[in-house]
């Protein structure tokens, strides 16, 4: 398939060399009685982009939100199995979620800046962690916005409300906001689905850039996107992880019939 870029092929050789950030074992998750994740075993590797694809309702977002335990905002949720983040089981009852979420940033489908100034959006995270020094904050804001490739567009309007920005800018602002607390992993749930093609391109480029410093997990309904930007791809169906491999392999030689059916557009 032509949309898998050449650069990717070079990666075939690196197989299994990177360390794992996450190790998910036998993860099951229920919303009340709905069994939304079924025996998911899913390692996530450092400094890679891991894409999760699958038809609507298959559990992509649910899995992603389990990685920073945001899924618990739904009160009826309960889980079994373990998710180890850097060796620690984050599903343990005494695990401090605030700590986890400080290390694992998240970017949502719809850009969700706070109704504050651009500056305050970025400074929000550092501030709750006790950073008050204006100089340091200024520095963090600039670094983060640069990191999210949006500094030049907004540097003259840092005091303006974030809702004055375009959707694509808002999304990059949200990425910058996540960067500001220097996470280890960034989770992204269909970060470009609400954006126009141009903004999508910008965000995709940004993701490629960020990979150098962060591990990225991205949910997307757009197979081309997964193919374009990810190192590994997971295909989920009905709450199960059907297949998980290097992106090139998944798209070129899917092992499971269902994966193939999905990729070739026979359902979903």
């Amino acid at each position, binding site marked *: 398939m032509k949309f898998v870029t050449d650069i990717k092929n070079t990666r075939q050789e690196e197989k299994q060399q990177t360390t794992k950030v996450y190790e998910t074992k036998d993860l099951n998750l229920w919303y009340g009685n709905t069994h939304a994740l079924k025996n998911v075993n899913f390692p996530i590797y450092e400094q890679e982009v891991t894409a999760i694809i699958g038809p609507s309702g298959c559990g992509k977002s649910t899995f992603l939100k389990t990685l920073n335990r945001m899924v618990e905002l739904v009160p009826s949720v309960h889980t079994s199995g373990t998710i180890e983040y850097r060796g620690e089981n984050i599903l343990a009852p005494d695990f401090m979620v605030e700590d986890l979420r400080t290390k694992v940033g998240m970017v949502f489908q719809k850009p969700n800046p706070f109704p504050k100034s651009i500056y305050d959006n970025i400074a929000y995270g550092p501030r*709750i962690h006790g950073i008050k020094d204006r100089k340091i904050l200024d520095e963090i804001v600039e670094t983060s916005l640069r990191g999210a490739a949006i500094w030049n567009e907004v540097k003259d309007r840092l005091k303006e409300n974030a809702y004055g920005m375009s959707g694509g800018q808002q999304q990059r602002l949200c990425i910058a906001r*996540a960067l500001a607390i220097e996470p280890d992993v960034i989770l992204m749930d269909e970060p470009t689905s609400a954006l126009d093609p141009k903004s999508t391109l910008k965000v995709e480029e940004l993701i490629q850039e960020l990979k150098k410093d962060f591990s990225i997990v991205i949910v997307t309904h757009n197979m081309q996107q997964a193919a374009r930007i990810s190192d590994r791809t997971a295909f989920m169906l009905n709450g199960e992880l059907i297949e998980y491999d290097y992106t090139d392999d998944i798209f070129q030689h899917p092992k499971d019939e269902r994966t193939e059916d999905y990729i070739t557009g026979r359902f979903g």
Partner: protein
Amino acid sequence: MIENNKESTSTVRVKSMIEQNRQRQSFRAVSEKAVPTVLLVIALISILTTIGIVFVLITETFEFFNRVSLVEFFTGTVLRPLSQDPKFGILPLINGTIISSAIAMFVAGPIGMMTAIYLSEYASDKARRVLKPVLELLAGIPTIVYGFFAFTFVTPFLRQFIPEMSATNILAPGLVMGVMIIPMIASLSEDAMSSVPNAMREGALALGSTKLEVTFKVIIPAAFSGIVAAFVLGISRAVGETMIVAIASGSSKNFTFDITQSMQTMTAYVVEVAGGDASPGSTIYYSLYAVAMTLFMFTLLMNILARYIARRFREEY
């Protein structure tokens, strides 16, 4: 299709029946025109009510100021409407009104706000489903019942701790009024807070915030205009509340800041004078309108202010 025959036979019939009926139904056209007119007239009754209120208040207030100077009314600290040498200073009433409302807000503000925070940010669905109706119950209790409660329970209770407190005082009704207003502040603030999109909460939580930080750094700022409007409406309600103060604060027209003493509010004055059967034509009768007018203007301004705040300072998201 077998059904088809049947259908086509009836086709002719139903179509023509509709056609026939249509020609007969001029009534339909008339009602179609008449209904909006009738409804408009009904809708205008609300305007008529306002005009009625304003007209009644203004004309009689005008007569009052023919007899008592504006300056005396608005700057006088002595209110002795019945004495041989009557004095009509409204300041004792305004003072009483402000003090009782301030006490009420002192209770209802923080407790209402904390209740709103709890219900909107912390409570489980189940807890909310139980607590909200209970609070609504609190809001639905007639004020006369609160007045009775303030007079027969709260005052005697407080006097155990403040023996020098008068049997009729502004503190007890103020506190009880606060309790009455809690649901209003809580539910309006909760509305404002829960209408902040969940995406905002998620965004903040995902950055490692605690719920408390989400609430105070994101949700409350985003819902601020709604919350302020809730407070303003709460004040307006306190200012307009009548029976609680009328029963529990007596009718002394003291100009004092001692909340253990009896004071009169504007509303309680109206109740006293109207209930004491002021005879039409007397100055004291007209004073009723002047006080009511002041009250009306005050609450009207508060309501306009609340709406202005809610609209003008809405955070954009």
